[in-house]
C-alpha cells in the first residue's frame, strides 16, 4: 500500500513516526435482520504523517465513513489496530475533532454556544481565555455577527462553518472531515473548499478528508486514498504532487490535474458499476 511517499527530501535521520498509523483494520457488523455478517472494511493499512492533508475518495457505501469513524474512536475495530501518535485509539479524544456531513450542530444552541461546545465538555470553561478563543474561531470561519443566531436560521454552508469553528476551537492535532461539503450547494461548495484549504495551510493541521468528489479530492489532498467497495478496502494511494495554493481555475489546464482526474474517474466508474451490480 505504500506508494510514492519517499520523495520528500529529508534523507537525514529516520523518518518521523506517522501521526496516524492504521494496520490491517477490519470492521464487520452483524446484521440482525438477515443474520449475516457485513464486512464494512477489510485489511486497511495507512500511515498519515503530521501536517499531511489526506483525502479519502470512494463511491457511496465503500466504508470510507466507517474508516473515519474508527479513527475518530466512534467505532471499534473488529481486527487490526489504529495508533494515533503511537497510542492505540480506544475512544474519542481531544487530539481529534470531527466535521460532520450533516453538521451535527445542537439546534437549541446559538452559533456562539455551539462553537463553545468544542471546548466545554472535555476541558471545561475555566478561566477567562475561552471566550476569546470561541470568538476567534467564529471570526476565522467568517461568522462574525451571527454569534446569537440559531442553526436553523443559517444556510447549510453557514451551518458547516459553525461545524468547522467548533472543530478548530478544540485545537485538535487531527481534523477528521466526513464529506463536510456534501450537503451544501455547488457554488458554496467551491468557495468553502478553497477556504478550508487556506485554513488548513495556515494552521498546519493533519487532515483526513472523506469525499466522493474527484475534484475535491485532487484540489485538497497531498495524497488521495481511493477506496473500493464490497468489501470496503483501499484500492490505491496516489500523491497529487500539485503546487499550492490550488484553485479550480489555476489547475484545470495542468496536465497533472487532468491525468489524475481521468485516472480517478476510471477507477471510480468501475467501482460504482460494481456496486450497482452487486445490489
Amino acid at each position, binding site marked *: 500500500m505504500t506508494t510514492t511517499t519517499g520523495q520528500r527530501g529529508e534523507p537525514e535521520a529516520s523518518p518521523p513516526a506517522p501521526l496516524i498509523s492504521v494496520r490491517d483494520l477490519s470492521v464487520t457488523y452483524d446484521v440482525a435482520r438477515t443474520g449475516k455478517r457485513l464486512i464494512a472494511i477489510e485489511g486497511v493499512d495507512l500511515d498519515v504523517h503530521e501536517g499531511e492533508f489526506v483525502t479519502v475518495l470512494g463511491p457511496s457505501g465503500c466504508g470510507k465513513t466507517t474508516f473515519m469513524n474508527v479513527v475518530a474512536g466512534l467505532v471499534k475495530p473488529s481486527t487490526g489496530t489504529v495508533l494515533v501518535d503511537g497510542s492505540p485509539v480506544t475512544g*474519542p479524544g481531544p487530539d481529534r475533532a470531527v466535521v*460532520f456531513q450533516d453538521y451535527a450542530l445542537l439546534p437549541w444552541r446559538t452559533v456562539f454556544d455551539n462553537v463553545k461546545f468544542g471546548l466545554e*465538555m472535555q476541558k471545561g470553561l475555566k478561566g477567562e481565555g475561552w471566550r476569546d478563543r470561541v470568538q476567534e474561531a467564529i471570526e476565522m470561519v467568517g461568522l462574525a455577527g451571527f454569534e446569537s443566531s440559531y442553526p436553523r436560521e443559517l444556510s447549510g454552508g453557514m451551518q458547516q462553518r459553525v461545524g468547522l469553528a467548533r472543530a478548530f476551537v478544540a485545537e485538535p492535532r487531527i481534523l477528521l472531515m466526513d464529506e463536510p461539503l456534501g450537503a451544501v450547494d455547488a457554488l458554496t461548495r467551491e468557495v468553502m473548499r478553497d477556504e478550508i484549504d487556506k485554513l488548513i495551510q495556515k494552521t498546519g493541521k493533519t487532515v483526513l478528508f472523506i469525499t466522493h468528489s474527484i475534484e475535491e479530492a485532487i484540489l485538497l489532498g497531498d495524497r488521495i486514498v481511493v477506496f473500493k467497495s464490497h468489501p470496503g478496502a483501499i484500492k490505491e494511494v496516489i500523491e497529487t504532487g500539485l503546487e499550492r495554493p490550488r484553485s479550480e481555475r489555476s489547475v484545470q489546464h495542468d496536465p497533472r490535474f487532468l491525468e489524475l482526474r481521468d485516472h480517478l474517474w476510471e477507477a471510480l466508474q468501475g467501482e460504482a458499476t460494481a456496486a450497482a451490480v452487486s445490489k
Partner: protein
Amino acid sequence: MSTFLASGPNLGRGGVGAWLAGLSPAGKAGVLAVEVVVMLVVWQLVVGVFGWINPVFLPPPTAIWQGFVELVSSGVLWPNLLISLQAWLIGFVVAAVIAIPVGLLMGTSLPVDRVVGPIAWTIYATPSIAYQPLAKAWFGFGIGPVIFLVAISALFPILLNVAAGMRTTNPSIIRAGRVYGASRTQLYRWVYLPSTVPFLFAGLRQAVVLATIGMVVAELSGSAIGMGALIIKSVNTYQTDQAFAAIAIIVAWSVGMAQFVTLVERWVAPWTRKGRR
C-alpha cells in the same frame, strides 16, 4: 391563534393558499376573526331568525350569551368552575410529575421501556369513560374521581412523547457529543434532555385536551358540582342555553391552556419557534 392557520404541509402555493401564507400575524388573526363571525351570524340566522331548528335543541349564539350572563349573575358559575379548574390543575400536575421522570427513564433504558411501554399503551388506549364508574368506587363522590380521571388522561400523552423524544435524539448529534468529549452524564444533560424538550411540549398540549375530556367525563354523572354537573343540570331543566354556555367556557379553558403551553415553550425553548412559512 395564528399557528392554527399556519400549520400543515404547504403542498403548492396557489391563489388563496399563497395569500394566507403571506399574511402577517395580525392578518392571520383577522382571517380567524372573520371566520368566527361568519359562523356565528349563520348560526344566529338559521336558529334565531328563520327558526329552522328548535332553540331548545340548539340555542342561537345570542341565547347562549344570555345563558352565560345568567350563570354569572346567579352565582351558579363560580363554585362549579372553581372546583373543576382545581381538579383539572391538580390532576394535570400529578400527571406531569409522574409522566416526565418515568418517560425519561423509558427513553433511556430499553428494559424499562419493554416493561412499562406495553402497560402504558394499554392504559392509554382504554377510553377514559371506562374508568369513570370505577373512579367513583375508588375515590368516592367528591373531587377525588375527577382528579383521577384528569391525571390518568393527561399522564400517557406526556409519558409516551417524552420517551419518544429521548429515543429519537439525532444520532449524529450524539456522535458529535462523544467526539467533543462528553461523558455519559454530560450527554444526558446537554444532548438528550434538550432534544426531548419539543416532544415534552407536544405531549403537554395533547394532555391539555385529554385532561379536559377526562374532567368533563368524571363530572357528567354522580357529581353534584363541577362544570360537567352544571351541563347535566342545565339540560335536565331544559336550559340548553346555559349548557352551551358551560361547554363554551370549558372549550375556552382548553384552548387557552394549550396556548399557554405554547407560550411557555417559546420562552423555555426559543429554538423551536417556527419561521415564516
